[in-house]
């Protein structure tokens, strides 16, 4: 049966376990998978620029022995001539075996999936979903912490507009014994629908403003960037963009085994002096992003 990935919740936790086991095996035995996708083609249909996500997909397919075709912005695609997403995917289905699509409009990959003859992976649709980032976050936590249960995670920065944060919370609530600490300025608090959902499920959470105060409690710290494009008002952005800067002094209050994650790119919110700290896991996270995309491609192509 043709399967797509639109949201991280499309997979059950058991399916995610299998996906992460596969990613773990790829990490340990890359040679075993070097030809797994030989003769297969991935189409990267990126209607807006996203260097890291696109290159991560391209790296994943190349490491599996497959090939990649695609476009990296709408201007160089037939969308510039007015072609619909539905028509584009029908054509791409003739050219490739699997498609990763990023689009500035929310729901565009789902429209593609409805008409597609090949698996479609949502590689980010506006402020809506970015499931492979969430899978990357989950794999990083599972690999470095050994489990997706039983920890306190602090999410810090823009918790209002940050889709990676919302998506990660929704994915983590399916696991046991997780406590959330939401660290944000008043203006960028996590939306009510999320705290309502946590309240209904009886999942403990706390909202605080100062990062320093809660640092010793954390097993994981997920930092986010305050994104300029989410603000209508330049003044608000300038006021809030440097609200949190994680530096060595703040990190000295953290547990020795705490991990710092970040979906990247970072701007000022993590000082470069933190990069050499063994707790800084955000560059490893980017590596796990390739492994999880490799596992995902294999799974959706039925080659796992």
């Amino acid at each position, binding site marked *: 049966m043709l399967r797509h990935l639109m949201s991280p919740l499309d997979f059950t936790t058991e399916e995610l376990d299998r996906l992460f086991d596969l990613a773990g095996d790829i990490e340990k035995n890359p040679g075993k998978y070097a030809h797994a996708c030989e003769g297969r083609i991935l189409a990267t249909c990126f209607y807006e620029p996203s260097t890291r996500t696109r290159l991560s997909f391209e790296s994943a397919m190349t490491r599996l022995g497959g090939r990649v075709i695609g476009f990296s912005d709408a201007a160089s695609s037939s969308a510039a001539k007015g072609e*619909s*997403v*539905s028509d584009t995917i029908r054509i791409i289905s003739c050219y490739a075996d699997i498609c990763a699509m990023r*689009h*500035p*409009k*929310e*729901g*565009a990959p*789902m*429209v593609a999936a409805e008409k597609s003859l090949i698996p479609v992976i949502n590689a980010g*649709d*506006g*402020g*809506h979903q970015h499931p492979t980032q969430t899978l990357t976050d989950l794999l990083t936590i599972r690999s470095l912490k050994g489990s997706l249960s039983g920890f306190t995670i602090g999410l810090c920065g823009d918790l209002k507009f940050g889709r990676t944060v919302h998506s990660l919370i929704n994915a983590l609530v399916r696991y046991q014994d997780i406590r959330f600490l939401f660290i944000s300025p008043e203006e960028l608090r996590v939306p009510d629908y999320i705290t309502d959902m946590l309240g209904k499920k009886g999942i403990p959470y706390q909202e605080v403003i100062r990062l320093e105060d809660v640092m010793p409690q954390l097993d994981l710290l997920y930092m986010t960037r305050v994104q300029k494009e989410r603000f209508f008002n330049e003044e608000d952005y300038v006021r809030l963009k440097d609200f949190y800067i994680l530096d060595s002094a703040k990190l000295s209050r953290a547990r020795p085994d705490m991990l710092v994650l970040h979906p990247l790119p970072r701007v000022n919110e993590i000082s470069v002096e933190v990069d050499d700290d063994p707790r800084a896991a955000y560059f490893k996270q980017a590596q796990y992003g390739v492994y999880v995309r490799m596992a995902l491609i294999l799974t959706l192509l039925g080659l796992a």
Partner: protein
Amino acid sequence: MLNVGKIEEGFVLDHIKAGKSLELYEHLQLDKLDCTVAIIKNARSNKMEKKDILKVECDIHLLNLDVLAFLDHNITVNVIKNGEIVEKKELDLPRQIKNVIKCHNPRCITSIEQELPHIFYLADAENEVYRCKYCEEKYSPTAKA
């Protein structure tokens, strides 16, 4: 008191909120059916003080009950055969509605691809929350199409 005659075969939509019958008429696309329709506005009601009633002489299968349930699930649907009520239908909130309301999220793919249907799914039955299938934006009644 105004009297509207019985219908032989069709349905009577009772307990419509006063003043809402024309809106239902449009959403149910009754203008496209070649049948007799009576619109009764502000009829006296013990339960509601005032109510609207729609009497339509046509096959019940031509009525989109999902649309009706979405618009107002408190409406009573009486099915008439041979001039008698043969069934009173209960309305449940539909799990999905298509092209009844529009998504007004400017970031939604439906905002640029005009041929796409506007599909909403029931996300929270308790609070009667519908969300766009594509962008998951919550439907806001003030933006009702």
